[in-house]
């Protein structure tokens, strides 16, 4: 075997410690969603490409990086795609199965696939929430708060939320006098972080007063900053009033709840489908996920005109911030060691393990004779005359006790297991 990895570029193996951290993220997210009244769903890994190419779903730079192909029955030319984003699949699920409902609160933990260069990950895991129904502005506040609580539960700190609104960029584009087609293209350039677009827009807005960069690239704290933006730009760009109003309600409510908010007026994220307040979670300057309002998406995938919003946390990034699994978890772990390969001894060892698992203890049978173990407890099972003998060893105290039957062992460990 050569040293060269046989793993595909951008794909990752999760080792036991990685999985332990990943499961902690999943558990914290899932527990929080269930406690807030959300229901779990799962959508297929493969979807039709056209769901994503329709106007207003994914930005062109993302569409150029999806894994799309013709399926084995794709002679009709209908391409399919490895899910590049979970929200659009969830919207399709709603339209197909729940379209009559006025309100749906859904969550999922799913992988998404997007091409990235070099060793950058091409598969990511999203802990996502979708809130489908007319909930503005309460839903916007709830979603940010729910994500914030998950971060708190995981001990990810100091976290912050950056808020923005795509209506701000769109208002500027309209004020600049761009034709609708030019607005679409310019908006995509903003999504693609094209630095030249600001200069071009400034040339079209000579009466702006202050630098457009201040509006499109600046950021500040909470409602105070929003007030400043309003005073500086709303006179020259009247279309800014409604997005600033929407943002102000959300920012003030969250501030009162102790959520640290930064306002980055035009950091609209990577998705064309956002229509209202957009937010991003970060810790130490590192983005951990985000979401926003996407009132047009349900109609774009063939459903009714229904407002909606949602967010997703990046499970991989969150897991990477967590400490290694604690050794303390082994406090309640037991290794059962049969001292020979005789069938009676093996049967007694496995029966012992079953009984201890019944007490809620993590119990493994040592599958190799010389297997070392990090478990606190070790039970050695061996023959003594016609019967079996059981020796219980506590690695923390180095104390050893022998029992003539299994009941003695279980009675001794019941305290550890917390059993009555």
């Amino acid at each position, binding site marked *: 075997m050569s040293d060269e990895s046989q793993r595909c570029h951008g794909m990752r193996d999760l080792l036991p410690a990685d999985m332990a951290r990943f499961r902690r993220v999943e558990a914290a997210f899932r527990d929080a969603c269930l406690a807030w009244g959300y229901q779990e769903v799962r959508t297929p890994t493969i979807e039709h490409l*056209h769901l994503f*190419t*329709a*106007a207003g779903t994914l930005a062109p730079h993302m569409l150029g990086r999806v894994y799309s192909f*013709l399926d084995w029955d794709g002679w*009709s030319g209908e391409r399919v795609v490895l899910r590049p984003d979970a929200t659009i699949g969830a919207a399709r699920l709603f339209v197909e199965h729940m379209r009559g409902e006025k309100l749906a609160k859904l969550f999922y933990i799913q992988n998404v696939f997007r091409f990235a260069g070099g060793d950058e990950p091409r598969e990511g895991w999203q802990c996502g929430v979708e809130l489908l129904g007319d909930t503005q502005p309460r839903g916007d506040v709830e979603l940010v708060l729910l994500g914030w609580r998950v971060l708190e539960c995981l001990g990810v700190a100091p976290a912050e939320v950056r808020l923005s609104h795509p209506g701000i960029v769109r208002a500027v584009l309209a004020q600049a006098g761009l*034709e609708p*087609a030019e607005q679409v293209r310019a908006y995509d350039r903003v999504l693609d972080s094209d630095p030249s677009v600001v200069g071009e827009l400034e040339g079209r807005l000579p009466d702006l007063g202050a630098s457009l960069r201040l509006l499109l690239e600046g950021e500040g704290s909470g409602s105070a900053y929003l007030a400043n933006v309003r005073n500086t730009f709303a006179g020259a760009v009247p279309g800014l009033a409604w997005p600033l109003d929407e943002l102000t309600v959300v920012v003030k409510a969250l501030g009162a709840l102790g959520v640290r908010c930064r306002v980055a007026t035009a950091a609209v994220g990577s998705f064309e489908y956002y229509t209202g307040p957009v937010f991003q979670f970060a810790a130490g300057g590192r983005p951990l996920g985000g979401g926003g309002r996407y009132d047009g998406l349900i109609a774009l995938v063939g459903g009714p005109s229904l407002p909606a919003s949602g967010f997703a946390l990046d499970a991989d990034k969150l897991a990477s911030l967590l400490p290694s699994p604690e050794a303390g978890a082994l406090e309640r772990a037991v290794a059962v060691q049969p001292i020979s390969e005789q069938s009676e001894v093996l049967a007694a060892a496995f029966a012992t393990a079953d009984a201890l698992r019944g007490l809620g203890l993590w119990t493994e049978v040592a599958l190799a004779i010389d297997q070392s173990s990090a478990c606190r407890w070790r039970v050695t099972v061996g023959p003594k005359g016609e019967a079996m003998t059981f020796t219980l060893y506590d690695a923390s105290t180095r104390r050893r006790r022998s029992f003539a039957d299994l009941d003695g062992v279980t009675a001794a460990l019941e305290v550890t297991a917390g059993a009555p």
Partner: protein
Amino acid sequence: MPLKLALPGGQLARRVDALLARAGLAISGYSDGSRSYRPRLPERDGVLLRVFREKDIPIQIALGNYHLGICGLASVQEQLVRYPSEALVMLRPLPLPPVGLYVGAPQSEGPTTLADLAGRRGLRLVSEFPDLAEAFALAARLPAYRIFPVWGAAEVYPPEDADLAVVAAASEQEVIGHGLAPLHRLLAGPPWLIAHRGSLQEKDLSPLLGPLMALDGAGAPAGRADTLLELPAVPMAAGSAPAPRIASERVRVALPDGHQQPSAATILRNAGLSFAGYDEEGWVRRPTSSIAGLEVKVIRPHDMPQQVALGNFDLAISGRDCLLEHHCRFPASPVAEAVDLGGGQFDLSAVVSQDLPAESLAQAMAIWRAQGVGSIRVASEFPAIADDYARTHRFWRYQVIPIGGASEGFVPEDAELLIEGIQTGRTLAENNLKAIDRFLRSTTCLLAGRREVSGRKGKLLAQLIERFREAANQRAAGG
């Protein structure tokens, strides 16, 4: 390592040959009818030339298999739009006639401007440049579009079998001459000299680069690749419902162009069928029939199985190799061989270099394993068949290199193995190749859909199939 230049075959070869001569690089064995894909540059040691189909050249340059290449702008952009690569550098346009790539619509009842496309669901785009067609569809925000890559004759598909065609043409007038209304020009320009970036940085390319860069009359200055592609910006609009497609009441037959055309004409004559504009001497894209309810189009044989599967055509005269390629890719496709017509026989074969001391695939694999070949490169115009062949023969690790032609030049430098059709074996011998496994006898066959067709159309269809069957039986009996 020699200095390697990739040259285009096909129609561009003659012009490039003359251009190179003008640059003081007179080549022998290039566009003079030679079957070899390795022309020579006399009196210049250390220069290796190879002829490829145009579309394969940017791939070879990006991979670093060749240092320099010459090919059409559309072929370069087709590669870059799907696989943007820093490794491919566009050096300069060459003083050769420009060619454009146009999006064309049917001249009657089709859209007349790009704005007419906004929000139209389910548009079918056909092109020899499927990745550029897709880039157009994405930029124009066409909802639920479908791209149909074809080997050629894209212009003949609209309006019945496609809504838009993305076609190469010298001018808008040429597009109109094809029966299409040009909606948008995606690009236009002469062929380009391209290079591998790493080679530019580390290898002295001056024996070729000097004369080629010194050529005058180069036309437009070199630009960035992304500025050469003119993608549309179309206003967003809600997607309309797809227009229902009404099945044709006529029996639609696809006939082959290219080298299969003379034998197909003979087959038709033997079956007692004659179409104005299609005989042993030549063809037009839309021959006419005196049989009521029968419609005929001439397209590439490679494209026929999918067209029959889609229901665009009821019958098609193609090769078994094309049908197998389609079924390897789409096993449940509703197209089948209705009649073995018997003509155009050749063997699909595994082909290696004559220098490889192997007479069978097993021996070849043993040698490659002993040589430490980590990944067996399999080049073929039939990538799905090649993939199936590699899987069923348990290649340990392999790459299928889809190519558009000129395949005999790939072995041994750029591939270990070819999956290739062999008729006489003469071209193989001239390129120092040999077959080690002839695994499929391919003949011309009549393709038909597996769906049931009733009424008058069904009756005519059955009569036509029977005519072909009788002709095939007579042929088999030596009649």
